[in-house]
């Protein structure tokens, strides 16, 4: 059977390993999971889509919460506690409504009737209380159990109530009379007084079967009306069953035993189909109402979701859900809405305001039942308040049809409605708040802000990773309950959400160094609520629930207020720039968030960038910020890191994909990145975020583009290739900017050259692997991408060594073309400054000759193309004092041109395309090109000697304008020997051929 184990996460603090009874529930749309523990006084409402997000915590009880129940329309949550009270809350907001009843002894179980109008509560007290949920009156107390009642269950048809006590007695009660129908003694195990385990019982969703754990480690099924034993499920449980749960369609039953395993049964075949072992006893389970999953919680308060339990080959647990169940969920209310009846008795309607989704009309049978069911149910009151059935009778077909439509629509629209959720606002680098544990409000490459809540007060600490550099900041007490924070080297900003009328949302800023005393400031917001904060060099930004972007200065001056066009998701600051992500529209039905980003330059008051933020399908944004170099980056829940680039008119490059690198059971929590590394904290699954202690350690990961699996088998090289070209383009852009600003670019030039060289090395290795994999076309394409002259020569050498003469020839052609390009460019540019037309004229002429050479395959032309090459090379070899090429006389520039011209006469293949494209290049780009080429030419020119010496006047001119070119010399020195080698080799090759 299954060997993979299910990872559970902690829902509540367990009390020192003492097992406690925990409860878990889904709401009907499967949006939330509610958990509680009998050792913890809080109730947690988890978002089922974002399990890692902090749960909503309801803390109203003064002792452990032993029982939970959710009304069928999911608008009302009831909790019963050891503190002997039953409380009602609004759901999913979690707002406390009322203490609906009190007991004298702890409460153990709760159940809503299928209409939601009645709540049964029971526990160590003598009787089971049936409570009217509207006014809180006790409709009836059912007395008859000798032991503690551990579970009650309303029959889905609302006729009976079944209950079981700790002694194993099962009683069937008739609801409308309150009489005991059947009393089955000793059918369930006697659990004594161990309150971490409960006897349970459960009706099948169609109400025909009552299932009760048996005394022989089995589950016994009893008939609905006669209470006769129908059959039992016996199998691999070696100890008695302690919890059971029916799948929504009643085809499957999940049982958990004291033997710490959970079995899934196929009811029709009466066989177990799957099982799972756990570390602890599972004390509660709930099937996902809209999918193939089961939520489980163990006695140590750890919960988890067991996905896809039922194999695909079998019917899904949500297929063919008996309509009865739907009908029963608050049918009456819908009935009234249909009738457009403004009824005064509808105090219940707040309880069921969203109910139209799930509600269905009551069945005839139920109507009948209710009409004579006594006084104890408010259903009946409702029933009475409905105006005489005349209206219904008048137009029964219409009503019926409408309802039919509703029912048909309901599953789909309901799903869509509940599934697509807009992501809530978050701070990058924050971990979810958890009670009594320290968590990060902000974690970045600089330091961290942590907070811990203790007895209503929070305690905040600010730490810098670099203890020697960062200022030492005193820890502070936080009376506001800050949940958002941001940190940079100048200060920290905090904000808290609004909590009711009394606690206004507050924004507080603490500078780290200030010459004035008391330079900390705070702002309060009436009604408004801060959703995201960000910090920059001398500004503080806060985005609020009113979609206001408020920008303050360091000192607290309210500088600007902008109105954003969508609810904020997150914000990040870097120096002068503020980046904000907002929702562009509601998320798609496929659960894709529609996000938009914008970058605002605060000091210039400009908005340089704006656009849509890409996310992996079905994911949400988990981190957003700037790289160390100031590039905009985002990371989504599917583990794709994307970086903004100016290329392609401003797009996002996926630079990292966790699914490609990820080892199993690891999650990456991104902290930041730089040009070639990703800084993240590795969290062991199922944790999605790090804990504060032990202090997390950053891990460097290589960026890796999600490349397709290539037939080349050199993924690492291909990845490097793309990354380096991206990097190069970044540098180039910066150089352009610096030139535009008239700054000295020599340092960047240096970097550009190094990157160029590294890129070439990478390309050469790729060429080698292409040659090995026999992808010659790809190899030529790669060679064309080489930026340095000597790299092309290296490639030729490589290819010759690999015995690919055909390819070598082509590469020679490429080299030739490149040489020509450079020479023409350099000869042309001085002219082009004065007269741009003159520059174009010589160009196509030479182009044609080169392209002719490159295009021809015949050996004759290829030898033709070889000979001038050889000529230049031999010339290059002969002068030994190549080191001093400066004497650049005018007549020396000519030989190459003459040769080319001669050659040109022989071939007449016209291609003006290249020439045209060259004219299209903008002045700026040309200049940049020019500079780079200078470097190249300088490096290649020296050994090449007089034949291509025309760049030298250009070069000397260049020397005047720019101080030095530091890399040119060194590179030429390095290159000399290798180049000479290759030249010699070529010579011998050529000689052999001739």
């Amino acid at each position, binding site marked *: 059977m299954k060997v993979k184990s299910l990872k559970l996460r902690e829902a509540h603090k367990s009390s020192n390993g003492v097992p406690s009874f925990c409860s878990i529930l889904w709401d009907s749309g499967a949006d939330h999971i509610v958990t509680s523990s009998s050792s913890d006084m809080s109730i947690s409402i988890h978002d089922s889509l974002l399990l890692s997000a902090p749960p909503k915590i309801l803390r109203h009880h003064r002792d452990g919460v032993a029982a939970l129940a959710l009304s069928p329309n999911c608008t009302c949550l009831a909790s019963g506690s050891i503190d002997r009270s039953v409380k009602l809350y609004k759901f999913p907001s979690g707002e406390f409504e009322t203490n609906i009843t009190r007991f004298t002894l702890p409460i153990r179980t709760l159940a809503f009737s299928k209409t939601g109008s009645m709540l049964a509560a029971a526990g160590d007290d003598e009787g089971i209380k049936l409570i009217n949920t509207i006014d809180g009156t006790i409709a009836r107390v059912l007395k008859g159990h000798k032991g503690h009642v551990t579970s009650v269950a309303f029959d889905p048809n609302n006729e009976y109530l079944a209950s079981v006590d700790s002694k194993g007695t099962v009683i069937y009660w008739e609801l409308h009379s309150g009489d005991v129908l059947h009393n089955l003694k000793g059918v369930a195990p006697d659990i004594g007084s161990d309150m971490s385990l409960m006897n349970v019982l459960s009706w099948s969703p169609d109400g025909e079967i009552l299932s009760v754990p048996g005394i022989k480690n089995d589950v016994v099924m009893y008939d609905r009306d006669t209470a006769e034993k129908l059959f039992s499920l016996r199998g691999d449980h070696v100890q008695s069953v302690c919890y059971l749960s029916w799948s929504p369609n009643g085809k499957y039953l999940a049982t958990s035993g004291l033997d710490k395993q959970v079995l899934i049964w196929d009811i029709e075949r009466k066989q177990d189909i799957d099982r799972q072992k756990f570390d602890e006893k599972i004390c509660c389970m709930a099937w996902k109402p809209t999918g193939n999953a089961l939520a489980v919680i163990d006695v140590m308060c750890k919960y988890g979701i067991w996905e896809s339990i039922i194999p695909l080959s079998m019917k899904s647990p949500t297929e063919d859900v008996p309509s009865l169940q739907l009908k029963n969920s608050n049918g009456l209310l819908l009935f009234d809405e249909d009738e457009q009846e403004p009824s005064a008795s509808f105090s219940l309607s707040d309880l069921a305001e969203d109910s139209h989704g799930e509600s269905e009309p009551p069945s005839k049978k139920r109507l009948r039942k209710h009409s004579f069911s006594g006084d104890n149910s408010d259903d009946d009151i409702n029933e009475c308040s409905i105006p005489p059935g005349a209206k219904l009778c008048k137009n029964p077909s219409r009503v019926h049809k409408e309802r039919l439509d509703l029912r048909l629509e309901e599953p789909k629209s309901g799903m869509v409605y509940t599934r697509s959720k807009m992501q809530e606002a978050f701070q990058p680098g924050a971990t979810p708040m958890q009670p009594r544990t320290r968590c990060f409000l902000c974690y970045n490459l600089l330091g961290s802000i942590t907070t811990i809540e203790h007895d209503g007060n929070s305690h905040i600490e600010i730490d810098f*990773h670099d203890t020697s550099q960062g200022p030492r900041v005193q820890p502070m007490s936080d009376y506001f309950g800050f949940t958002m924070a941001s940190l940079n080297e100048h200060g920290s900003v905090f904000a808290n959400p609004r909590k009711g009328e009394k606690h206004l949302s507050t924004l507080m800023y603490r500078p780290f160094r200030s010459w004035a005393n008391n330079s900390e400031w705070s702002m309060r917001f009436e009604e408004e609520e801060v959703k995201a904060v960000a910090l920059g060099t001398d500004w503080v930004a806060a985005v609020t629930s009113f979609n206001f972007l408020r920008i303050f200065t360091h000192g607290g001056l309210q500088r600007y207020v902008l109105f954003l066009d969508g609810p904020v998701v997150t914000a990040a600051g870097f120096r002068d720039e503020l980046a904000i992500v907002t929702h562009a529209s509601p998320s798609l039905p496929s659960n894709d968030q529609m996000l938009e980003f914008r970058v605002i330059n605060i000091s210039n008051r400009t908005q340089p960038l704006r656009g849509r933020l890409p996310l992996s399908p079905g994911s949400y944004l988990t981190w957003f910020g700037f790289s160390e170099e100031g590039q905009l980056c985002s990371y989504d829940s599917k583990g794709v890191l994307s970086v903004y680039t100016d290329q392609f008119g401003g797009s996002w490059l996926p630079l990292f994909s966790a699914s490609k690198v990820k080892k199993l059971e690891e999650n990456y929590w991104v902290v930041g990145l730089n040009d070639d590394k990703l800084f993240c904290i590795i969290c062991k699954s199922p944790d999605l975020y790090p804990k504060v202690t032990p202090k997390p350690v950053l891990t*460097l990961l290589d960026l890796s583009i999600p490349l397709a699996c290539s037939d080349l088998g050199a993924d690492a090289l291909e990845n490097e290739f793309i990354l380096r070209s991206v990097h190069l383009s970044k540098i180039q852009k910066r150089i352009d900017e610096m030139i535009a600003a008239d700054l000295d670019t020599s340092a960047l030039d240096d970097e550009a050259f190094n990157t160029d060289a590294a890129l070439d090395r990478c390309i050469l290795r790729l060429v080698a692997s292409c040659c090995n994999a026999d992808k010659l076309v790809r190899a030529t394409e790669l060679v064309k991408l080489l930026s340095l002259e000597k790299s092309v020569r290296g490639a030729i050498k490589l290819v010759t060594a690999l015995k690919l003469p055909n390819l070598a020839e082509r590469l020679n052609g490429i080299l030739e073309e490149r040489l020509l390009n450079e020479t023409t460019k350099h000869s042309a540019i001085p002219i082009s400054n004065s007269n741009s037309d003159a520059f174009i004229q010589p160009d196509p002429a030479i182009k044609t000759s080169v392209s002719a050479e490159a295009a021809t395959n015949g050996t004759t032309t290829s030898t033709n193309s070889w000979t001038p090459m050889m000529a230049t090379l031999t010339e290059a070899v002969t002068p030994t004092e190549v080191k001093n090429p400066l004497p650049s006389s005018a007549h020396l520039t000519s030989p190459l041109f003459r040769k080319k011209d001669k050659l040109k006469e022989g071939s007449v293949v016209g291609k003006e395309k290249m020439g045209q494209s060259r004219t299209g290049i903008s002045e700026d780009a040309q200049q940049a090109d020019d500079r780079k080429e200078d470097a190249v030419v300088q490096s290649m020119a020296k050994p090449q000697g007089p034949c291509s010496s025309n760049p030298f006047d250009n070069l000397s001119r260049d020397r005047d304008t720019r101080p030095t070119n530091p890399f040119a010399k060194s590179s030429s020195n390095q290159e000399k020997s290798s180049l000479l080698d290759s030249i010699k080799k070529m010579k011998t090759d050529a000689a052999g051929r001739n």
Partner: protein
Amino acid sequence: MAGQSDPKLSIFSAAEMEFLAEDEMVEIVPNMRMEPLNLISGDYGPFRPQIPASVPYWLAVALKKRGKCTIRPPEWMSVETLTRILEAERDSPREFQPLPFHYVEISKLLFDHARDDIPDIYMVRSLIEDIRDVRFHKVETGLETISARTHAVKLKNLSAMEVNIVRPFVVRTLQAFYKHDSPEMIQQPSVTSNRRLPATDRGPRRDLRQR
């Protein structure tokens, strides 16, 4: 056995052993920013706050003393691993479990200088002491079996400190056995000085060589 070997006879003192062990590499998490150190033994760094770097123990300890880093204890230095090793050591009386060559020295270094960086330090410490005792005991019992017929003793996975302690004894024992075993050596004491060298070399050296 450990008591028997006179410290004067061992080739290295404990402090010297520790000095040798300090060249082993360990991961540290610096809390400062520093350029790479280019030393004769190699380049270490660059150091960036909260990002692990691999350095030799001597550097790690030096940085730790200045409060500039935390040392990440090596993987084997966890309660689970050590418990497993201890059990395995106890279970197999004739074999030694693979442990780092300098485990005794490294653990001493870390206990002295980086107490706060080792989780469950008391447990780890007692486990390592237990392991060391078990292994020394094994060495002792193993040496008891040396008889006149023994020409070599094979001890796999022995650590530096253990080797250091038993080396003089074992070498001399084997020499003595060899000497007493070969009658010609006794009869012709004059020749022994010529012969002893190659003979002793062949014996224990291969298995007890120092790494």
